[in-house]
């Protein structure tokens, strides 16, 4: 995870975003288009707006960018608008207002034909309930995306078999979805999404319907695939530990609004408000925070000859070193001293008092 975090941070710094979302609105109900531009309506509470106009705002003025190769997680509880948001990005639901720029092109302006082109070649999606076709064999399910874009049968089969192997389902290609377990069905969904060689993969709570153990397997599978294929991923989840495990950056959503965007350690180390703080309170902080979050400025009577560690080392991994040393560990980056970490700081984290 540390490796993932470091790599993506460098990627974010250098490259143009693959997807950038600007001022996106999704309003349900009659005359939805008028709501975003009316400050008076926007100020109303959820209940008041429904009573007054019958509208519900699912996504409210959201902007964010996703860098190439990044795993961007959108996290929120049910009803927070996260599934609506991801559907707006591929226009499975038509957003009410805003822009979704994909590789320099505003997707919301694309006509139906162009939109289909994009869906066939540029992005694909994995669904919570798998969305498999029960009347088709696994191999035909995986090849479905290739079929709709007109690939020949031989090509489809070859590519589908590769994908089936990639997700570890070899030998099941002639089974029907009903004959597979939930986890295996979602592997089919994953293979189907990968088969079209998309630039961006969207995941809509893909593992929520699975048992905890299988969920863990599948999360590791996604991490493995991300490492092998380095695809950009937008991942929707309601599970904070899943978000922290997979996400380079995490966007926390509530009632259609962005509460905070940041890396996992930023959310845990510097929650933007009580909502986020409450959310992350159960997370073992030592697994997420890095030394830069717990170091303190050196005082005059601190000995300055302790061991050296980088600021992005995760606390749990630094615990042994810090506790083994009889002097405080110096946190150093590019030869510059940022702070020091002693037994006190480490124990506070491990004991969970912060």
């Amino acid at each position: 995870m540390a490796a993932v975090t470091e790599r993506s941070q460098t990627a974010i710094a250098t490259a143009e975003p693959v997807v950038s979302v600007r001022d996106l609105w999704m309003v349900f109900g009659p005359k939805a288009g008028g709501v975003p531009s009316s400050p008076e309506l926007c100020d109303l509470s959820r209940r008041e707006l429904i009573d007054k106009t019958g509208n519900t705002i699912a996504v409210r003025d959201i902007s964010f960018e996703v860098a190439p190769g990044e795993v961007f997680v959108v996290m929120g509880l049910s009803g927070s608008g996260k599934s609506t948001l991801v559907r707006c990005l591929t226009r499975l639901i038509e957003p009410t207002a805003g822009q979704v720029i994909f590789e320099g092109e505003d997707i919301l302006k694309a006509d139906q034909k162009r939109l289909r082109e994009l869906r066939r070649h540029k992005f694909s999606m994995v669904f919570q309930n798998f969305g498999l076709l029960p009347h088709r064999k696994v191999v035909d399910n995986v090849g479905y995306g290739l079929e709709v874009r007109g690939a020949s049968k031989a090509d489809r089969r070859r590519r589908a078999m590769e994908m089936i192997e990639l997700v570890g389902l070899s030998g099941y290609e002639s089974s029907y979805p009903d004959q597979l377990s939930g986890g295996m069905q979602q592997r089919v969904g994953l293979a189907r999404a990968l088969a079209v060689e998309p630039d961006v993969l969207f995941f809509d709570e893909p593992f929520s319907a699975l048992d905890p153990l299988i969920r863990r397997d599948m999360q590791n599978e996604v991490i493995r695939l991300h490492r092998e294929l380095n695809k950009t991923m937008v991942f929707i989840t309601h599970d904070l530990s899943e978000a922290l495990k997979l996400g380079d950056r995490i966007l926390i959503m509530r009632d259609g609004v962005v509460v905070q965007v940041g890396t996992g350690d930023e959310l845990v180390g510097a929650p933007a408000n009580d909502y986020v703080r409450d959310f992350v309170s159960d997370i073992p902080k030592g697994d997420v925070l890095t030394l830069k979050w717990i170091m303190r400025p050196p005082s005059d009577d601190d000995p300055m000859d302790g061991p050296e560690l980088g600021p992005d080392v995760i606390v749990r991994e630094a615990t042994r070193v810090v506790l083994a040393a009889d002097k405080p560990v110096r946190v150093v980056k590019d030869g510059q001293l940022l702070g020091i970490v002693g037994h006190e700081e480490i124990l506070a984290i491990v004991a969970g008092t912060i």
Partner: protein
Amino acid sequence: MTTMAEPEPRSRLSFQWPGRGKLIVGLLVIWLVLGALLRGKQTLSLAPADLTGLHRWFNDLDDSISANRNSNPVFLYFFNEIRLVIDHLVVFIQGLIAQPAYGRPVPVIGWLGVVALVTFLASAFGNLRVGALALVGFTFLGLQGLWQESMDTLALTLAAVLLSLLIGIPLGIWAGTSDRFNAVVTPILDFMQTMPTFVYLAPLTLFFLIGPASATIATLIYSLPCAVRYTAHGIREVPPSSVEAATSLGATGWQRLTGVLLPMAKRTIVLGLNQTIMAALAMVTIAALIDAPGLGKTVLKALETLDVGTAFNAGLAIVVMAICLDRITTAASRRAELAGRGRAPKAWAVKARRPALLIGAIVTLFAVYLSRTYLWAAEFPSTLRNGTDIEIGSDIAKRVSIITDWVQLNLSGVTNGFKDAVTSLVIDPLQTLLVESPWWLVALVLIGLAALLGDTRAVITTVICLAVLLGTGLWQDTMTTLAMVLVATVVTIALGVLVGVWMARNRRVDSVVRPILDAFQTMPPFVYLVPFVALFAASRFTAIVAAVLYAAPVSIKIVADGVAAVSPTTVEAATASGSNTWQIITKVQLPMAREALTLAVNQGLIYVLAMVVVGGLVGAGALGFDVVAGFSQGQLFGKGLAAGIAIVALGIMLNRITVAAAHRQRTV
């Protein structure tokens, strides 16, 4: 004791409920008293041969349409065109299997070919068991001496089914994918299905003349809703995530339809095919009234002459055909279901299937060839080559006649006694009350009931329907029909509750009774009349018994399912607190199945009404007879049409009041 200890809320409820009940009782008492006092006054009676202005106007309309049929552009370019196309389709299918055609003395495919084809199709799309059933069943039709009539019925059914699917599946797809269209089309389909089948025959003859075209369109009206509904339902059942997944991969609308929606809805659509065929068969037999050829006509003619033996033989043929078609399409839908789930049958069955189909196809083709070449294979023979008589139809007819005669001779004491007792104790008093009370009194009582049982909308509908009934000039006939409907409905509901509760509480009873009910429901309604004419001769009582038997399966099933759906935990809790069986049924199961009960009443009423009017054929008189007479006598055409309108108004009124009552119960 508990009521004494109960706090406030309960007492408020108990103030409302008996209040309404007492008002209803009071209303009925007032009706009884006033009805006795004012008996025979302002009853709006109309003698059988008398006509009102409206009836004459309908007659004139009929005359003017007949006169201008070939000059009026609407007819020339619209109705006549439709009639021609449908006539051609029917004649074409009849030429294939039923009637001499293309300069040949026999149909294109003779009996041997048809039997082979049906057997082959049943085996290929269903399984070998239904294949065998088709073989036996269709051969039996021939042995009954009713081959040509059966094929006429089959041809008409096929034509109607073909058109139903052609129109119904696209409409169903539309209704399945568009909420707006679905909202528009659902009430129309409801209306098409709740109207008693009898009713639209007359108006259709006005536009399409008597004959196959009208018969097919009448059948279409009845069977089309099944095709539309099931298709729409199947498409709506497809999980949205599958559709969304296809969209997210860039599938076009057409690709979604052909690759996702239709394959996943296939099983339901095939189930709809089954329902469509059964509905069509039922209606085709009734369409005999407007001169549709086939078995229905044989039954009708025999009923008119009270030749129970012949009616029974033809009725039996209808049942045999119904069973065959039902079983074959059910097996086909089961196969579609298995295929849809990807559950292939055993490996050897898969391997053997292809060569077996090939051999079957060759044998079938050979049989078709024989049936085109040799007379014995073309026309169903009544004797074998050595002269042995193999025709059993007249035997069946003769035996049934003997039994009927014996029953009427020896059991007439019992049957007539029963009939007379019920007639004089129940039917006559109720009919007297309805028919002999002044019309305004009955109307006010009905409006009062609508207000007490239902809501404002029910009252408005009742007022409008009553106005229409008055306008038709058939008030008294309507009241006679209403009396029969009420008696039959009460019996139907009683049966529904008794048997339904029994079935729900005892799985063994359910497993025995349910198939019998299913069998009753596959029988075309026409057939019900035959045995009861044999037992009770032609009378109102006969129609009521037939109506009860027609409606009871539906009500029983609804009650049984409703009671069975009551949460077992609640029943367990009631048992644990020491309730006896009677208390569990009356205090837990029936109250909790209230919605099912009101639905059972509603459906019971509609089915009863449909059958009571068909009873007009066997001496039940009233509106049903007016309709039938309208078909056979030109000067009564207008009256028959008015009777049809009266039946619809009566049906809508009863339906509306019960629906509103059900709704009110739910919200209270």
